[in-house]
């Protein structure tokens, strides 16, 4: 099994609190998707992560949660990450 390292950043204060750090580096298998990263995070930090980061069908990101890979927002959780990528979870700031 080959592994890659990715940096994960949390810009959502709620996630920071849940996870306990602003950012971390984790190891995942080659070919992992954003969804796989979230599953990995839940193995490290607890299953609660899945509730907040994934929708009820556990298929895609929870509505309004954005995921940026190296400063570009990806359209869904099927996006495959690469070694050295920076993955940022943030909220889609809206009007109000």
């Amino acid at each position: 099994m080959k592994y890659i390292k990715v940096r994960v950043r949390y810009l959502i204060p709620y996630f920071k609190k849940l996870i306990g750090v602003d950012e971390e580096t984790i190891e995942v298998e080659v070919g992992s998707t954003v969804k796989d990263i979230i599953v990995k995070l839940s193995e490290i930090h607890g299953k609660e992560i899945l509730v907040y980061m994934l929708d009820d069908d556990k298929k895609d990101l929870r509505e309004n949660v954005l995921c940026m890979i190296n400063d570009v927002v990806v359209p869904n959780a099927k996006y495959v990450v690469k070694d050295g990528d920076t993955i940022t979870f943030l909220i889609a700031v809206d009007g109000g």
Partner: protein
Amino acid sequence: MSAKPLFGFNGKWLRVNLSTGKISIESVPEEIYRLYLGGRGFAAYILFRELRPGTDPLSPDNKLVFATSIIMGVPIPGVNRVVVAAKSPLTNTFGESEAGGFFAIEMKSSGFDVIVFEGKAEKPVYLWVKDGKAELREASHLWGKTVKEVTESIKKELSEPSARVACIGPAGEKLVRFANIMFDNRYAAGRGGFGAVMGSKKLKAVAVKATKRPFDFYDMKTLIDINRWFNENWKKFPGAVLRSTYGTLDGLKQLNSDGILPTLNFIGGSFDKADLISGEALNKTILLDREGCFACPLRCKPRVKAKPPYETDPEYGGPEYETVAAFGSMCGIGDLNVISYANQICNAYGVDTISAGVAIAFAMELFERGIITEKDTGGIKLSFGNADAMLKMLLKIVNREGFGNVLAEGVKRAAEIIGRGAEKFAMYVKGREVPLHDPRGKAGLALQYALSPSGADHMQAPHDPIYERESESLKALGITKAVNRLDIGPMKVKVIYYAMLFFGLEDCLGICKFLFLPHQVGVLSPNHLVEIVNAATGWKTTLWELMKTSERVFNLVRCFNIREGFSANDDMLPERLFEGLEFGSRKGQKLDKEKFLEALKLFYEMAGWDHDGRPTKAKLYELDLEWVVNEIYKG
């Protein structure tokens, strides 16, 4: 034979002629409810039919509409907003503003889905409505009083401590063009100057009270089930939890780091004191507690107590994002105590915090550039960052004193009065001050600002980051592909068009845009909305019919403006937005004017409008607006 029972509405509108004192009740058929739903829809229907083109917004001929909707009163979070509309004295366009809280539900429960005010009273009055009965009462003793004084006095003299009160402060009486209407001291129908419309009619307040609900909903069980689902699930949505924790200030720091927090009159996009005015800072310093609107567990509205010498009364609530950015980053003020005090002045005297803050930031830039001097300002050193000067000028605006009298006209008219090149720094669209979101970092917002029928408005559609990913709620609206926030090509035009229709639907229904997806805070889906409408009314409607209704209303308000002489030339943004941001992480970024104009043209075509932005006859016929055709195709 008994009449078919009505579900979801009273079928009664109240008409109050302030000139004659006559109050009449009109029965309105279900067909009108189905075609217009409520809120913006009813307002558009009434104002287009009843106002003559060219009506002076501050004359007795203008009409002021308070409208609820077919779903107002359902026990579901986010359904609580009263829509106030008239021809706007700030823009001369169709004008509309909404306020949350509890007033809309109380008004509808008092027996009337809509109240229309016309004419002008000889001396100050207020309207008192209770359980299907309405009367005008003397208000001379309330004239000149601030909002809290009026609200408390009315409740006391009616011996109705739980009545809901909408009123104007002294700024509305003095016809400040962005005077607002305050509801229960801290909920505002802020934008567009309807406080001035009330002031021009000598209408100081409207108080409503119901002891029972005269209408039924068709399927209460479904409504209660949706409420239960919401309460069991909203904490799974990070956006909703953030809003509940920090209120609308939840995104300020992110906007700042993204380089699009409007700063110093939109010169730049980052404020070095952003941390001091963030949601986190507010929670740690002056927050007392949070409260919510009817049935809403998020409780996003802050009540604050600022520290001396800027001590505030929690009864006036606390500053939210737009207010914090308007008096904070825009004016260079990094002190939440000062901002809260400014918020209180606005609420007590009754002016829109966005227009007031943007007007002062505009004047500050003119002062810094030497276009105005202390001679103009009456000795006030109106530099960016000067808190004392900001508060002094705000008091002058609400009292229409000195240079404040100029700014009380709004930045468009103020720039014309000042001359000397001031226009270049006036941030407005169709006469209304630009709210605190910068389209240079979210390009679709430029279309919303340009195409909002009421002038610059940040709540015409979700903002661009929402569309950067796929989601079920967007797919339900027919938006299937993700599109970058800086894109302003054909895909973005389609997205904004559809999304404007959806937000327009929410304005017809009196909905808080936060709680429905697609929005940063959203929990309920567009399909929930259809379920709610059907459960309330017993109809078997679809998202298709509801979106077409919104399209009907969108075209009707567009036609209102066209009849007033507005055209494609007015769908234009301030020149500054086509120039690069001068500082912040997006330094140099600007809107591409050529692409923006292309996008506008494409929007017109998608909407079924001609090259001048006028709905085609075919579009009007399609939307059952044949009665409008002759009005805008004369000759």
